[in-house]
C-alpha cells in the first residue's frame, strides 16, 4: 500500500472516529462526563477570576479601628479631669459608630480577622476556602443546575460576566444531561421493576376497552410501554433519597435532621436558599479546611445523583399519570353511553 493510499484511507477513519466520539459525547453516558468536565472547567475559571480579588476589606476594617482608637484618645485627652459619665457617653457613641461600620462590612462579606492573629477562635475562615477548587466546583454546579445558593457569589465584574456566560451554556447542557440520564435510569428501573413483577406477581396488564365497552381480553401489550411503575414507588424513592441525604448531612455537618432534610429538599428542588450550606458548621472550628472541601465535593455528588434520580422519577410518574388518565377517560367515555 503506497503512502498516498494509506493517507486516503486514514482520513475517513479519523473522521469516522471523530464522529463516533462526538456522538458518544452527546448521548447518554457521554453527557455525564461532559457535564462533569464542564463543571471542572468552570471551577478553574471561577477560582482564577475570584481569587485575584485582593481582600481590601481587611484593610478597611483595620483603618476604621485605628480611627476609632484615635477618636477615643482624643476624647480622653480632651478633658483635663475626666468624668465617668462624660466618658461613657462619648465613648459609647464612638463605639456605636464603630459597630455600625463593622456591621456594614459584615453585610459586604467581612468575616473577621484571619485566624493566625487571634488568640481565640471565634473567627471564621477567610474566603480562601470559599473559592478553593471544591468551593468553585460547588459554585459551578449551583449555577448550571440553577440552584444558586448564594453563600458564595462572584464579587468582581468579570466574575459576574463569567457567571452569565457560563450559565447560558451550562443550563441547557445540564438539561440535556438530565433528560438523557433520566431516560436511561427510567428504562433500567422499569426493566428491573418488570422483572420483579414477573417474578412475584403476574404483571397487571392495563385493561383495554373495546368498542362495545367490554374488556379486551386479547390485547397484547407492547413490550416496554405497558409496564408502568406505580407513582407511589417513585414518590417513595424521592422521599427516601431526601431523607437519606438528610441523615447523611446531619451526621456530617452536625445539623439537626430537620435542617438537613430541609437542606436536601431545597437543594434538589433547585430552589437553593443558601441559608444552610455544607461547610458552614465545620468552618466554625479552625484548621479543618480539608473537611470543608470534602463536604463540598460530597454535596456536589449528592446533588448530581439526586437530580438524575428526580428526573427519572418524573419521567416514570408522567408515564403512569398519562396511562391512568387515559384509562379513566376511556372508562368515563364508555360509561356515558
Amino acid at each position, binding site marked *: 500500500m503506497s503512502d498516498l493510499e494509506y493517507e486516503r484511507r486514514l482520513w475517513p477513519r479519523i473522521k469516522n472516529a471523530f464522529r463516533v466520539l462526538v456522538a458518544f459525547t452527546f448521548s447518554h453516558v457521554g453527557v455525564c462526563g461532559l457535564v462533569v468536565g464542564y463543571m471542572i472547567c468552570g471551577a478553574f475559571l471561577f477560582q482564577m477570576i475570584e481569587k485575584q480579588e485582593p481582600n481590601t476589606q481587611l484593610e478597611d476594617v483595620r483603618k476604621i479601628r485605628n480611627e476609632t482608637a484615635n477618636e477615643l484618645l482624643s476624647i*480622653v485627652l480632651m478633658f483635663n479631669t475626666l468624668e465617668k459619665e462624660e466618658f461613657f457617653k462619648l465613648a459609647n457613641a464612638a463605639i456605636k459608630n464603630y459597630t455600625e461600620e463593622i456591621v456594614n462590612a459584615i453585610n459586604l462579606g*467581612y468575616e473577621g480577622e484571619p485566624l493566625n492573629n487571634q488568640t481565640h477562635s471565634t473567627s471564621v475562615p477567610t474566603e480562601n476556602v470559599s473559592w478553593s477548587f471544591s468551593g468553585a466546583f460547588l459554585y459551578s454546579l449551583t449555577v448550571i443546575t*440553577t440552584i444558586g445558593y*448564594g453563600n458564595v457569589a462572584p464579587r468582581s465584574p468579570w466574575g459576574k460576566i463569567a457567571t452569565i456566560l457560563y450559565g447560558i451554556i451550562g443550563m441547557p447542557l445540564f438539561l440535556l444531561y438530565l433528560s438523557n440520564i433520566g431516560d436511561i435510569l427510567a428504562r433500567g428501573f422499569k426493566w428491573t421493576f418488570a422483572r420483579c413483577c414477573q417474578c412475584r406477581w403476574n404483571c397487571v396488564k392495563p385493561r383495554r376497552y373495546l368498542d362495545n365497552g367490554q374488556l379486551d381480553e386479547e390485547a397484547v401489550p407492547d413490550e416496554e410501554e405497558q409496564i408502568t411503575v406505580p407513582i407511589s414507588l417513585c414518590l417513595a424513592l424521592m422521599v427516601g433519597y431526601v431523607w437519606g441525604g438528610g441523615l447523611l448531612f446531619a451526621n456530617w455537618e452536625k445539623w439537626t435532621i430537620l435542617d438537613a432534610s430541609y437542606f436536601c429538599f431545597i437543594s434538589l428542588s433547585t430552589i437553593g436558599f*443558601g441559608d444552610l450550606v455544607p461547610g458552614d458548621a465545620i468552618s466554625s472550628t479552625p484548621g479543618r479546611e480539608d473537611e470543608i472541601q470534602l463536604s463540598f465535593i460530597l454535596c456536589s455528588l449528592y446533588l448530581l445523583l439526586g437530580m438524575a434520580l428526580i428526573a427519572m422519577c418524573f419521567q416514570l410518574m408522567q408515564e403512569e399519570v398519562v396511562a391512568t388518565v387515559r384509562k379513566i377517560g376511556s372508562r368515563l367515555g364508555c360509561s356515558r353511553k
Partner: protein
Amino acid sequence: MGGGQSHNQQGPQGPSSSHGPNNGSVLATKKQQHENANKCSPAKVKSCLRTFFAHLFSHIGLCILIVGYTIAGALMFEKLEKTYEMKLIGNRTANFKKLRLHYVSELWNITEQFNVLYEMNWTSAVEKELREFESRVVATANTAGYSDVKDDLHWTFSGALLYSVSIITTIGYGNTAPRTAWGKILTMFYAVIGVPLMLLWLSNIGTLMANTFKFAYSHACCISSNPSSSSRSVQTKRTPSSKTEPSSIQVKYSVSAMTCETQVVQAQQNMHQRALNRREQRAKLRSLDPSAKQVLMECAEYNVNMDQDERSRRILHQLHSDSGGNGGEMLNISGMDEESSDEVESVIDMRGVTRGGDQSDLRGLNGGRGGSVMEISVNSNGMEGTPSRIPLLHHKGGGVGGIESGPDLVEVDEYHCGGGGSGSDGSASPSLNKYHLPRTEQRVPVSLVLTFVVLYIMGGAAVFSVWEKWGFLDSAYFCFITLSTIGLGDYVPGVSFGSAGTKEGQAQLIVCCLYLVLGLAIIAMSFNLVQEEVAAKVKDIARHIGIIKDNPEH
C-alpha cells in the same frame, strides 16, 4: 388499527369513531349527529358552557390561582416567622448593647489604670480591646441567623411575598429564609404544591403569549409585505408543546367551515411554496391534494346541506367541478377524543395508499408528554397534477422514511362543521366535530425572540440600577440570575441598607416580584416560539457533523 385508545361513540357524541376500516363517509355521521343534536339542545348548551369554563379555568383561573396561592403563602410565612425574627433582632440588639457597655467600661478601666497617660501603651491596649470587640460583634452577627445584619425586618408582607414567589419559581434568593422549624416544614410542602402549579401556569401562559406574539407578528409581517395573501386572521392555537418521540409524526387538523376558503388558499400556499404563483382560487382548489380535497368537500357538502352556507356552496361547486375522478382514497373519518391535553382536537383517521409501498396505519399515539397526536404515515398516490408531497403531515424528526416534511399543522379556532359538539362527552373537547386542515404557522425568527428577551433583561437592569443604585452591570447580572431561576441572592431589590423597612423598599420588593413573574412568562413564551426551530437547527447541525446519519431514502 393500532393504538386502541379510541373508543366507539355512536350517536350524539362527537364524530363517531369506528374501528372498522370503511365506516362510511363523514357526511353520514355528520347528518346523524346533527339530527341528534337538534334533539338534545340542553346538552349543546352544556357543552358550550363547558368550553367556556374550560377556557376560563385554563387561563384566567390559573392566574388567579397562582396569585392567591402566593398571597396565602406570604401571609402564612409572615405570621410564622415574623415573631421569631423580631425576637432574634431584639436579642442581637441587646447583645450588641451589652458588648458595647462591657467594652466601654473596659476602656474606662484602662484609662484609669494609667495615671500618667502614655499614649503608646494606652493606644495598644485600646486597640486590643477593640479587636476583641469586633470579633465578638462578628460572631454575634453570624449566629443571629441572618447573614445580613439589619434592624429592619426581613419578614414584612412584601418580604414574605417575595419569599413565596421565590419558592414557587424555584429561584430561592435566600436573603429571607425560614428559621423556625414549622417554617421549614411548611416551606417544603408549599414548594411541593407550588412548583408544579407554577410550571403549569407558565406553560399555559407561555402558549397564550406565544400565540399572541405570532399573531401580532404575522399581522405586522403581512401588513408590511404582502397585503393579499394572509390578511385574514389566522387564529392559531396549538396544544401545549409537548416533547414528542423522535419518530412520531404529529398530525393536527383543524377546519373552520367559515374560513374553508381561506384555509384552502393558505394550505395551497403552504404546500406549493415554490410553485405558487398567482392562480385563481379554482386552480388552487384543483391542485389540492385529493385527500384534503375530500375532507373539504364533505365538510362543504355538509354545511351546504345543513346551513345553506353560501361560501361552502361555492367551494363545493368548485370542488365538484374539479374533482372528476379525484376520489382516490376513501376517507375514513373517525374521531377520537383524547383527554390528555386541554385543547383537544379530534383527529382524523385516514388511510391511504402510501407512497413507495410503505404501508402504515394510523395509530392513535397519545403522546407521552401530554399531547394528543396521531401517528400517521399516509401518502397520497400522486394523482395527476397533485403534488406528491403530503400536505397533511408534519414530519417530526427522523424515523419514518420517505416522507417530506410538510408545513406545520395548526388547528384553527373554530366553528364546527355542523351543529356539532352536541352531547359530546365533555371530558374531551366539546367541539369534537372539528376537522382540521393543515396550515402553516407563521414562524417567528429566533433572532427576534432573543432580541425581545434581551431587551426585557436590559430594561429591567436599567430600572433596577436606577432604583437600587447598583451599577448597570450589577443590575443586568441580577436580572439574568433571577430570570434563569438561579437566584443567588447577593443582589435583591428592596432590601438594601436603609430602604428595607420603608414604603419605598416594600414597593420595590413587589415590583421585583412582578418583574420576575412576567419575565418567567416571557421566557416560557420564547421557549415555546423557538423550540421547534432550534431543535430542527440542532438536528441539522448534528446531521451535518455526522452524529445522526442521513436518512438513506432522502
